[in-house]
């Protein structure tokens, strides 16, 4: 008799998908955008409930749905980050959408669907479920990128993202089919156990390279980063905040699981690729951002360089490296959410402004806002005692541990270069003569987001142990035996 598959560990995923559809139905029957705000808050509740479900199931390794999905400590950690990123983004979008006249209930629903895809990516245990998760993530993202559909910039961003995203998905799929052809399986467990350097064929390596390229597109690592600045600039700001956190974290989680777990025994084959794109991302991310005038573009390049740093952890391919990535992503999430919520407050005469010079003298017109952005900038630059220092600390620790000395030296040198443009924003806010003040009334929910993220970044130095300890346990689950 056919037994039912073990689907219990996949319950959070199903819950999230179900709530997305329920909210969609609710929105349709409640006549559109009159209920946009309520649906957004319900979506946040659904995301938080999913966090509770995921953590409630524990971090024991369980394979479900005929080996398609896996839940383990690593997956739980990354899923929680993604869910938090999505929840923050929805909260940040509420008032923005109302002001820009695009307060539609579809927005939170689309974000929920994309988040479902991300959770699937994180817990994928098979190249097929990986691809389904990836596409489930991508399609809603294309739509939210062009959510301000009457603005050419936004539509352009969505279109660009779609074309390049489809290209990268194609490459990934091609790589996956090559892997299947030469290894005879798409299951990560089987791949991890059966692959061996001595029996490996060149076709498999080509397949791995294509998979890596596809994933590098998704995390926007150089040289597959070209879409990032344009999309980040064009997309509505809360969407950019979302793009720079949740999908990036999910794609990086996937990258780590595929490389370190499924292809872990072939580390000698892929390590140099990862090192090369890591170095290129750090260099380009830090040098290209110097001349940016638009703060969203600057954040795009900044996110490229941060991906470069976290890829150092992947290049190490060790538990210490994965731990570094986990810590990095957790802190990066709060830094980016915080920085983008300040950017969302950059509003003058009812219109959004995005140039760095618009921040001039913010320390005098809005001291608290300036102090918060200053904290995020110093933290992104990695200056202690702020949290951003610890994220880099654990990455470089992993690099030294894996004897990747030159990678570490390059990393710290580029971090000094990138320091220049982060600190330049502090300079504009604190040293320059004030520009006209921004509009008041940033909203209570925005204040809460700012308060939470500032507190996390500032106070992390006092209680680092819980996060680091959890990351330590989570990273160990990728390395059985």
């Amino acid at each position, binding site marked *: 008799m056919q037994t039912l598959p073990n689907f219990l560990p996949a319950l959070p995923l199903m819950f999230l998908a179900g709530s997305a559809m329920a909210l969609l139905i609710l929105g349709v029957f409640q006549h559109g955008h009159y209920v946009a705000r309520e649906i957004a808050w319900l979506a946040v509740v659904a995301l938080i409930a999913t966090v509770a479900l995921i953590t409630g199931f524990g971090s024991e390794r369980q394979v479900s749905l005929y080996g398609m999905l896996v839940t383990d400590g690593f997956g739980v950690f990354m899923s929680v980050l993604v869910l938090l990123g999505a929840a923050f983004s929805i909260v940040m979008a509420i008032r923005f959408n109302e002001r820009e006249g695009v307060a539609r209930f579809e927005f939170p629903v689309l974000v929920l669907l994309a988040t479902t895809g991300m959770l699937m990516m994180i817990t994928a245990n098979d190249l097929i479920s990986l691809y389904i998760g990836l596409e489930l993530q991508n399609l809603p993202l294309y739509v939210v990128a062009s959510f301000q559909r009457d603005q050419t910039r936004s539509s352009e961003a969505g279109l660009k993202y779609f074309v390049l995203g489809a290209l990268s998905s194609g490459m990934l799929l091609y790589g996956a089919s090559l892997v299947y052809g030469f290894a005879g399986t798409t299951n990560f467990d089987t791949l991890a156990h059966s692959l061996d350097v001595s029996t490996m064929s060149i076709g498999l390596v080509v397949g791995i390279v294509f998979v890596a390229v596809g994933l590098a597109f998704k995390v926007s690592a150089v040289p597959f980063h070209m879409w990032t600045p344009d999309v980040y600039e064009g997309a509505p700001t809360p969407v950019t905040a979302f793009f720079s956190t949740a999908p990036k974290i999910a794609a990086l989680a996937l990258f780590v699981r595929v490389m370190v777990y499924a292809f872990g025994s072939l580390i000698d084959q892929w390590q140099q690729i990862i090192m090369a794109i890591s170095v290129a991302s750090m260099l380009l991310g830090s040098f290209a951002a110097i001349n940016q005038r638009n703060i969203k573009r600057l954040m795009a390049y900044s996110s490229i360089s941060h991906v470069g740093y976290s890829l150092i952890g992947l290049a190490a391919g060790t538990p210490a490296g994965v731990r570094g990535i986990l810590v990095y992503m957790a802190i990066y999430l709060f830094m980016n959410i915080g920085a983008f919520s300040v950017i969302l407050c950059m509003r003058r005469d009812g219109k959004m402004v995005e140039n760095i010079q618009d921040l001039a003298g913010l*320390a*005098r017109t809005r001291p608290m806002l300036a102090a918060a952005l200053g904290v995020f900038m*110093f933290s992104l630059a990695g*200056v*202690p*005692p702020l949290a951003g*220092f610890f994220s880099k*600390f654990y990455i*470089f*620790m992993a690099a*030294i*541990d894996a004897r990747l*000395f030159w990678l*570490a*030296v390059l990393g*710290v*040198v580029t*971090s*000094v270069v990138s*320091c*220049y443009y982060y*600190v330049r924003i*502090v*300079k504009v806010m*604190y*040293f320059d003569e004030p520009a006209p003040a921004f509009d008041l009334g940033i909203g209570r929910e925005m204040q809460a987001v700012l308060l939470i993220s500032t507190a996390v970044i500032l106070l992390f*130095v006092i209680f*680092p*142990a819980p996060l*680091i*300890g959890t990351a*330590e346990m989570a990273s160990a689950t990728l390395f059985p035996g």
Partner: protein
Amino acid sequence: MQNWPLLTLTIFLPLVGVFFILVLRGAEADVARNARWIALWTSLIDLALSLLIWAYFDPNQADFQFVETAPWLPGFHIAYHLGVDGISLFFILLSTFLMPICIVASWESIKVRVKEYMCAFLVMETLLVGLFCALDFVVFYIFFEGVLIPMFLIIGIWGGPRRVYSAFKFFLYTFLGSVLMLLGILAIYYQIGSTDVVEALNRGLPVSLQTWLFLAFFASFAVKVPMWPVHTWLPDAHVEAPTAGSVILAGVLLKMGGYGFIRFSLPLFPVAAHQLAPFIFTLSVVAIIYTSLVALAQDDMKKLIAYSSVAHMGIVTMGTFAMTSEALQGAMIQMLSHGIVSAALFLCVGVVYDRLHTREIARYGGLADNMPKYATVFMVFTLASIGLPGTSGFVGEFLSLLGTFEINTWVAFFATIGTILSASYMLYLYRRIIFGVITRADVRAMLDLHWREVAIFAPMIAIVLWMGIYPDSFLKPMQPSLAKLVEHIQLSLHENAAAKLAER
């Protein structure tokens, strides 16, 4: 008393002051006044606490005292570990002593954003005291790097016309140096499995690694000291910084490098330090002679004193790497003396700058006539900077030169030329400002020292003379620790030589 967490209290008390300043509300003038008083009282209480540390410090012990440990990152053997010994004790005192002086010195000259200014200084005090107490590499690094943020803001917000350039130069220069040290710290971590300084000192590091690690730490400390040729950020930073910023920069920030050499570079990498000593001697001698000549050619008072700082710190690095007991004591006293004297000289510049708003030497002249008190004060610190016997500068220079002479006669010879040059540029500066005939009406109208300024200078003069006439009260507590350090270095060098011999 030994059981109290005295160090933690001293470190974090200024943050309590910051909290009180941040919650101030009301009219701008009231807020500014209250912020000044809160900052002053906080720093004075902190000074009292640090004097308690000195009072209860056992000068016959070489080991760390007032040790505090608390788990921080337990899985990684990274702990909140504090302690003081004879080497760090006086740097803590120097920081807490200069802070109230900085605050009083900015009482009237800082008029805008007083609240933020006082907060920046108090945060700086926390970081400075913390870094001298830290006995864990990561804790040390956090305090060491954290100093950049308040200093960057102090130069950038309250500085002179080219403040943005100088602030960036300061920040990026020192940041680049320090991140390399971070890699060194991580390498040590993987070598001994912990970032505890005491454990690293006890276990020692393999000779093969020492050179690389030494260079990584050197990159950071050499920029901070600053050694020639990475000193160029210093004159810019000094010229643009507000007076109190220069005081803390010259008084304490430069000592971070010298302290780092004595606390970390010498005991952890003795073999590498010994091998690279000729290299450092060369840089020090170039610094002493070259920057003295540069100082001789300056038209700007602050720039002149900034270059003289580089020269004086050259004597410190020379004495440090001579690695004899006398030379190390000399280097320590030289750092303390320079901390007080150069700080006082910057304050002297600040006094006339507040009145005439120019630092150009040629604008002044003949101040002895209408500012006799000022002329006297300036005279004391000029002579102390030159190293006249009876002042603190003499003790430091003499002991450093004496110790170096034993090791390398030529280095000592060139360094002595530097001290002659220092007499010439300082006296030349003094002559141009104080002596001569007053030609300008605005210079004639300048008032002599205000009682507040007298109150700043009086304790500084007292300490300069105390250190010069009876240096024993300063030397005695540091001697056991330095003796232990020298012994440790000698032992490591012997072991290394024996190991090399055995290989053959």
